[in-house]
């Protein structure tokens, strides 16, 4: 069943190659116009390194817009750069150094990458796929963006692949209203809506059993088996923090794992501290993570990180009937309180 779904997805990708080229050309034109008219100061999109890899591209000059690309290797979630002060300057609400009170007194901690920011302090355009757009919605709901200074360029997406050409698992379960970004959430949509082979209708939150099958398979294990499964993965973890640093929603200026006074979790890579790192991060993302999958893609040792966040997402969905990233106004249920919230733990 999964095999044929994958095969169908791959066929769709090939068919759409021509459409991708067309979109890329239109995107280059749009970026040229935006920059020439000074509607934006920076376009964040996809380009290519001289080594042949697709890379994030930061276009500040009109003539460089021709380097923008769009193809099935455009896996990166570029929304991540909207909270990076060194990329977008003083855009948004992120600014400068922050004083943090520690046990020893006042300690001036530096923001993640802040300092003398680039002179690009103005308007930014960002190219997004549907999954990327979901993370942008969460940033918006958390007041991390000044939406009016942002030009969101949505691209209908046939699915992206890994370097071996296989469509990513996350694309397999992506619903149409995500892979064809909704007009009302974007400033521009470039490219025709994509038609992928019919997958399961997953946008219905009541249709839970088809959404979280990978999580359910793990839930079906007994605690000892589950523990062993995850500890084997955590033993591989290098604590490179790629998962955290690639995540568009991990934007804390002073991450709890970078604090050394007190040091909450040892930075040394070992099963116990790695376990703490991943579980704490999952809790910080619960109700916020949109399953863009970048963490798992970035992990150099193949830890199935999506499953951890999706477990949390499953619990949030079951408890609050909420899925992150679909509505820019909706706040995560874990940061707001409503009278109707379930309270089974209090009897």
């Amino acid at each position: 069943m999964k095999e044929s779904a994958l095969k169908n997805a791959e066929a769709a990708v090939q068919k759409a190659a021509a459409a991708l080229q067309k979109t890329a050309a239109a995107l280059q034109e749009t970026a040229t116009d935006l920059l020439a008219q000074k509607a934006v100061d920076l376009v964040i999109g996809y380009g290519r390194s001289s080594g042949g890899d697709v890379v994030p591209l930061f276009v500040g000059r009109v003539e460089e817009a021709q380097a923008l690309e769009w193809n099935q290797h455009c896996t990166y979630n570029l929304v991540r750069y909207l909270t990076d002060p060194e990329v977008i300057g003083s855009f948004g609400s992120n600014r400068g150094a922050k004083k943090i009170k520690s046990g020893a007194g006042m300690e001036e901690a530096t923001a993640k990458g802040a300092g003398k920011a680039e002179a690009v302090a103005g308007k930014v355009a960002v190219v997004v796929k549907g999954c990327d757009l979901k993370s942008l919605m969460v940033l918006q709901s958390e007041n991390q963006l000044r939406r009016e200074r942002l030009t969101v360029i949505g691209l209908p997406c046939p699915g992206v692949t890994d370097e071996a050409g296989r469509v990513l698992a996350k694309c397999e379960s992506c619903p149409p209203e995500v892979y064809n970004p909704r007009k009302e959430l974007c400033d521009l949509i470039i490219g025709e809506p994509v038609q992928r082979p019919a997958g399961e209708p997953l946008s219905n939150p009541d249709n839970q059993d088809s959404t979280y099958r990978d999580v359910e398979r793990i839930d079906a294990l007994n605690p000892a088996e589950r523990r062993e499964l995850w500890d084997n993965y955590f033993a591989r973890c290098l604590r490179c923090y790629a998962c955290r640093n690639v995540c568009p929603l991990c934007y804390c200026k002073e991450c709890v794992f970078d604090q050394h006074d007190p040091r909450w979790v040892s930075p040394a890579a070992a099963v116990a501290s790695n376990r703490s790192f991943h579980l704490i991060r999952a809790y910080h993302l619960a109700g916020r993570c949109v399953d863009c999958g970048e963490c798992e893609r970035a992990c150099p040792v193949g830890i199935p990180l999506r499953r951890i966040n999706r477990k949390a997402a499953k619990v949030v969905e079951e408890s609050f009937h909420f899925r992150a990233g679909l509505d820019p106004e909706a706040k995560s249920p874990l940061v707001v309180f409503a009278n109707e919230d379930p309270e089974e733990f209090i009897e």
Partner: protein
Amino acid sequence: MRILERKTLTDLLKSRLADSQIIAPVEVEGRLYFQQLDPRKGLADLAWPAADQPSGDSAPGAGSESSDSPNVTPAVDPLTVNSIKEFFFPRRQELYEQTPEGIIPRPVAAEKKTLLIFARPCDARGLTILDRVFLGEVQDESYRRARQGTTVVGLHCLQPDRHCFCTSLGGGPFETEGMDLALAPLGGERFLAQAVTEKGEALLASLAGKQAGEAEREITEKLRKVAEAAIKRSIQVPDPQTMAKHFDSPYWGEVSRACLTCGICSYLCPTCHCFDIVDEGYLRLRCWDTCSSDTFTRTAAGEDHRKQKRSRYRQRIYHKFSYFNENFDTHSCVGCGRCTRHCPVKIDIVEIVNGIGEAAAVGRPAMAGRPEAAGRPATGTGAKRRRSGGKG
């Protein structure tokens, strides 16, 4: 030089399981890692270099010419994700306990017999570079014991992938620096074995295998040429004056923009060796660290001369391609390509280093698709001063 059959090698490994650590490539969920073999499982986990078999017309993973898709790599990446440095310089290493009552040292692990098999030339060379640090003026005892106790059996590369660039840094797919015994795959599960050191000679002498003849040497020579020709990328490190000249260029802000400041490049690199010393309760230990991290140079008082990621990325490049050479007569890079291969945003170190000079002069990297800047002289390796003797 002798011809070793696969069975000779597997017999050797099986016989060593009882009294030695065996470190070899292991496949886990589609990726290759160097790992210590679990003696209870015998050689079951060992990933024999099957993907490396020369196969005439149908060499897998040679790569399509389509400009749209970069080379399609085989399902199993022939180069391991991790390098071999962690078996000499562990990710986490307990040093001692300090309680309010006293100091209790952790014993340095005794020298353990270790057989490390199928190390690539880049990995083996990486060890010789780490030797200059850990076996220099001040010797790291645990590192020294691990080096002395380990026999490195290397494996030559038949199919370097598009990220490899060892040849432009004094290495190569058929180089032997850092190996005790070098194996060249001849096809049909045979290897041409060449002893590089006394340790390797002793090992080879203990193995059965006929002398290599002219035919085998010719095959090996052909394979070497093919492999070297397969390496398309060439890093051209500018001379120290050019490096110094462009230190303040806005180029560094441009090329580091996409960087996530994670630790992948540092932790997978065969030559990166920065570490932190931390406390876990009363236990003091050292663990890997990366200069990419925004806490690396931050003092308790909050001072930090590398607040910006552009400063940190620049530090990485200058340390590897300028400062290290000045101190140790070699760049701190073996051209394995792991940093780019596994970077979540494919930051291309070759492109960036090659761009210092032309691109740095104008402050921006060349966009892909534009002609590469005209060639510049390759770096001189003359160091201003000799830092340490190294292992030799």
